[in-house]
């Protein structure tokens, strides 16, 4: 191996073929609301934790669907479960249970 001072940049591309569908199915079985997000962003806009750190349930769900579970866990790690997102979600998603379920399924 030779050090050229540069190497292949990692790809930022999402590969849906490699996404773990089984875990997401488990999540959807536990909290079917996982499928209902329409990406309006109300949750992140009202989020108490987002005022301090990068926190977004919308993006966390998206990351999970894209197979990037580490990103999702990070996006929810600052959540204080205050429930504002539940109050504002236009789809009536049970966000608190969804967050708890994500953290439980994907942090193992």
């Amino acid at each position, binding site marked *: 191996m030779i050090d050229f001072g540069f190497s292949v940049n990692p790809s930022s591309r999402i590969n849906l073929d490699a996404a773990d569908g089984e875990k997401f199915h488990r999540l959807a079985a536990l*909290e079917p*609301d996982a499928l209902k997000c329409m990406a309006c962003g109300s949750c992140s806009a*009202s989020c*108490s934790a987002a*005022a*301090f*750190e990068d926190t977004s349930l919308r993006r966390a769900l998206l990351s999970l669907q894209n197979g990037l579970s580490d990103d999702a866990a990070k996006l929810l*790690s*600052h*959540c*204080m*479960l*205050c*429930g*504002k997102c539940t*109050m*504002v979600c236009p789809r*009536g*998603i*049970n966000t*608190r*249970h969804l967050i*708890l379920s994500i*953290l*439980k399924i994907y*942090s193992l």
Partner: protein
Amino acid sequence: MISLITNTVHQITPEGIIDRYPNSYNHFVLPFVIGMTFILVYLLIGLIRILYHLSGEDRLKLLKSLINPKTAWKNIKDIFCDCLLHTKIWKRKPLLGYMHSAIAFGWFLLIIVGHIEVGLFAPRHLSGLTEGSLYYPIFYRFFIWMNPAHETLRGSVFFFLMDLILLYILSGIGLAMFKRVRSIALGMRHTTKPSLADRVALYCLWLIFPLRLLAEGFTADLSGGGFLTRPLNWVFRAFFGNELNFLPTWWAYSICLGLFFLAMPFSRYMHILTEPLLILFRNAGLKVRKPRKGFAEAEIYACSSCGLCLDACPMNTQKKNLKYSSVYFIRFLRRRNKKKVNEIADKCLMCGKCYALCPVGVNSPAIRRAIRETHNNSIKSDYSFMDTYAGSAENSDKKNKILYFAGCMSHLTPVIIKSVETLLKASGEDYEFMDRDKGICCGRPLMLAGRTDAARQTIQANTKIINDSGCSILLVSCPICLKIFKEEYSLKGIEVLHYTQLADRLIKDGKLKVSKSSSAIVYHDPCELGRGCGIYEEPRNVLKAVAELKKASKEKDESICCGYSLGTITLDEKDKAKIAESSVSSLMAENPDEIVTSCPLCYRAIRSKAEVPVKDFAEIICENIEKQ
């Protein structure tokens, strides 16, 4: 009759009482003795287990409370009122209260008076096991022959008393039987479905006292009897003749008692024996720590499965959700059905109404929280941002009297924040806004979800900010925050007040002048404010000063949760909406013009369902501040 007593040794007492059996024994007592022994051993083991699972600190607390005369007196009072007289039920549902006290207090009296009678007339049989002291007082009327010629006034009083007590109990049993058929007549819309052990114990309980009446009726001519047993004896003799074969009824009576005691640990009737223990624990100030052991176990066995929580639960608007009531929760917990327990624990709104209305005082919300803790507390979080955040106080150099913490939810209802600020300014109060732009959550939602460790971190961060602010009053507009600030924060010298309390105080102090409008309003008690913190009167005092206050069909500690409590984890939006509807319909009982509440969650929930204007507590005060 003579033949019956020929082969007995006559031991004549001063009042002509003769022991018909020299060894004071007959085989029929065996079922009772077996049952009684079983239950006593079971109780002893259970007590040791529960005490073993208490933490050392809790055991010490318990011991101290037992020797403290103040708590000891409270223990006695509570046990007498709650376990025997059932005053809590009496207050809400008199007929149901009578039923319970008739059985419990009646039976208690029967035992006590029975023992006194034995103590007076055959004291030997109370002295030791060899003399049958375990069973003798129970079957006293079987073992003795009383010379009618020597009947005294003292004896007759006991005959009368014992029969009166029996009648009292029988009236309770009669009501109980009637309740099985038509529960609504006793004020219960829903009743529990009994388990097999429950049924066995129930039928035994129903039979015990009628059988006692029968048995004593058969022997009333020998042992003497009162206004019930004597006439019964005449009737029996009229039908069956002189030779009465009374032994089978005594057997049946003993079998029922034995069976009842054998079934007791597996049935709801365990509450009779566990409730006093729970009272001792509660008065000692113990709290639920583990979901199934120690204190919680005492709570679980203290549940009488009466089903009053079925009617209390706000989820009962839909029949499908009745299965999430506390009574079933406790039942599954007792049976160690983990799946069901978890499901119910997560569904609950934690509104606390079942706890408030429970005649035994089983704190099932606390147990639910402990269950949640077992599977949610290990969830990792990253709250490092709290380490550096120092709050967004506006003029931090000035030490203000009042620090206002709006909390996460109030930020979704700007009308509350705006009105609270208007109210403070109108009263000339100096205040500082702790979380105008952003803030750390109070920790109650995490706590409710069982994430205790995470909650502790937010509590720690907020405690520092509040203590550093130099305030003397912490003002909150969200009851959820209020509860945790009061219970879990250690704020030195700082008074935590809900804005309803502050408003009441400001008006009383003359700092805030309000005028009364002609509007008829109704007040919705938020769960965490009312049942959670016991604040019912302050908001009403203020509201009476600004409007005509109407009543809701259910209010104060019976207030129906708005459905949007943060306590629930899995209840879905549709179910929440249904609960909100039932809450609103209770509020509309007297057709008020407006609904007022004092919680941002309730405000939003009720607003979404009510057809009359919904106002925040501070908002309606601001509308009625007297212009100077």
